[in-house]
């Protein structure tokens, strides 16, 4: 399993060799690739071995190892995305890339926890994007390598089957925690909100943000039954009637504005489990962390991958790094992975 920043020419060679690839890069580069065993999403921002960079000349490549038993590439639209977990192999991992602002993006973000087999099968991926100067003028896309065609509406998924002696493990690194401020509860689920209960009292949420002068570079953090889940604020200016988010807020959860972080990289490194940087086979981090923490040119040892418009570890996340590890299972005499017998 390797990750690298490669030229389109080098990627083309790997595709011709039949390698199974998960790619990230600028649309013009991805359009040059031939059909093969790959999926891709558009994004020009990356964390690399030499530091964070905007790169319009190279493609980030995650090459799946030879022990992978099978792959299946499928596109999902708004109607079929609820099947994404059901379609996954019994033992494997599925890579998903969704174009930002597409209907399937909204649908997945709001409804994934209700999909059949949610979280039972590992699903990891990201939301594709564009260069920040092209937001609004160019649509983020994903590519189905089977046909080498792009889409700005559908999600693309590579379902990967692993041998029985290996198992996928997904984790996250989220440096943000709830601050000591007000409790914020939203009356309904959605990518935007005009009202919220602030410490139990209904208020205009945009006015609340402006009056409190909250730093909108910091996310709202929900305590999702023990897991800190971020929702990043997209727009909260005077011209908007409501506040827009990069991921949905969910009704009934108690959010708080995140505690400020003085030094992103130090905090991030302090949260890395020992040795993780050598175990990650795929990871991506959020473009907002890249921007707000000035990661361009800065290196986080061992951590590479696209800087994305949203991260997926079973469900959509914001301002979070998600990662995949593959674990070797020991051989046990007389034991298989059947869950059918009890101890």
């Amino acid at each position, binding site marked *: *399993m*390797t*990750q*690298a*920043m*490669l*030229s389109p020419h*080098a990627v083309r060679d790997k595709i011709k060799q039949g390698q199974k690839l998960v790619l990230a890069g600028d649309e013009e580069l991805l359009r040059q690739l031939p059909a093969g065993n790959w999926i891709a999403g558009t994004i020009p921002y990356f964390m*690399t*071995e*030499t530091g964070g960079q905007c790169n319009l000349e190279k493609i980030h490549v995650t090459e799946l*190892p030879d022990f992978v038993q099978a792959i299946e590439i499928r596109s999902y639209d708004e109607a079929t995305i609820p099947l994404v977990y059901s379609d996954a192999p019994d033992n494997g991992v599925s890579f998903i890339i969704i174009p930002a602002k597409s209907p399937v993006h909204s649908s997945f973000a709001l409804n994934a*926890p*209700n999909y059949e087999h*949610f*979280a*039972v099968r*590992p699903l990891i991926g990201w939301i594709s994007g564009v260069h920040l100067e092209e937001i609004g003028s160019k649509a983020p896309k994903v590519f189905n390598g089977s046909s080498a065609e792009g889409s700005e509406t559908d999600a693309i998924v590579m379902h990967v089957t692993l041998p029985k002696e*290996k*198992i996928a*493990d*997904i*984790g*996250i690194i989220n440096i943000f925690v709830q601050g000591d401020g007000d409790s914020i509860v939203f009356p309904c689920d959605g990518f935007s909100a005009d009202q919220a209960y602030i410490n139990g009292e209904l208020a205009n949420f945009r006015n609340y943000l402006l009056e409190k002068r909250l730093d909108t570079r910091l996310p709202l953090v929900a305590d*999702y*039954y*023990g*897991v800190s889940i971020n929702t990043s604020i997209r727009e909260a200016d005077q011209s908007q009637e409501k506040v827009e988010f990069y991921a949905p807020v*969910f009704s*009934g*959860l108690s959010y708080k504005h995140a505690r400020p972080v003085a030094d992103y990289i130090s905090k991030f490194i302090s949260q890395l489990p020992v*040795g993780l940087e*050598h*175990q*990650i*086979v795929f990871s991506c981090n959020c473009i907002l962390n890249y921007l707000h923490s000035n990661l361009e040119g800065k290196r986080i040892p*061992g951590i*590479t991958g696209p800087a994305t418009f949203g991260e997926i*570890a*079973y*469900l959509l996340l914001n301002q979070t790094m998600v990662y995949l*590890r*593959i*674990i*070797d*299972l*020991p051989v*046990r005499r007389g*034991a298989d*992975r059947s*869950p*059918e*017998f*009890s*101890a």
Partner: protein
Amino acid sequence: MTGSNHGKKENLTKTFDTIQKSPEPVIRLSREVEPVWHDIIAGKVNIEFEFFAARILQGTLARNFQKNPSAENLAKCAWELSDLFRQNADLPSVCRDLKKILG
């Protein structure tokens, strides 16, 4: 870990090995759902899971149960959470979590 092969291979390439599972004793769950799973969903037992998928699913199911606190829904949610552990019994984090749950 089976030794880290990481390093520069070609053009900033980083290579990883899979990691070796520590020899944790694997607990195989029966298909019968023990009462503790109901208690976890209902919030009567609080366990901070190490297995990330379990933390996410527990949150989703607890939220689901709050919206529909029927006995039937509790049984369904408890089954879903226990089934996640059943299907991932080999993961080291699951082994450690099951020790916390089942003692």
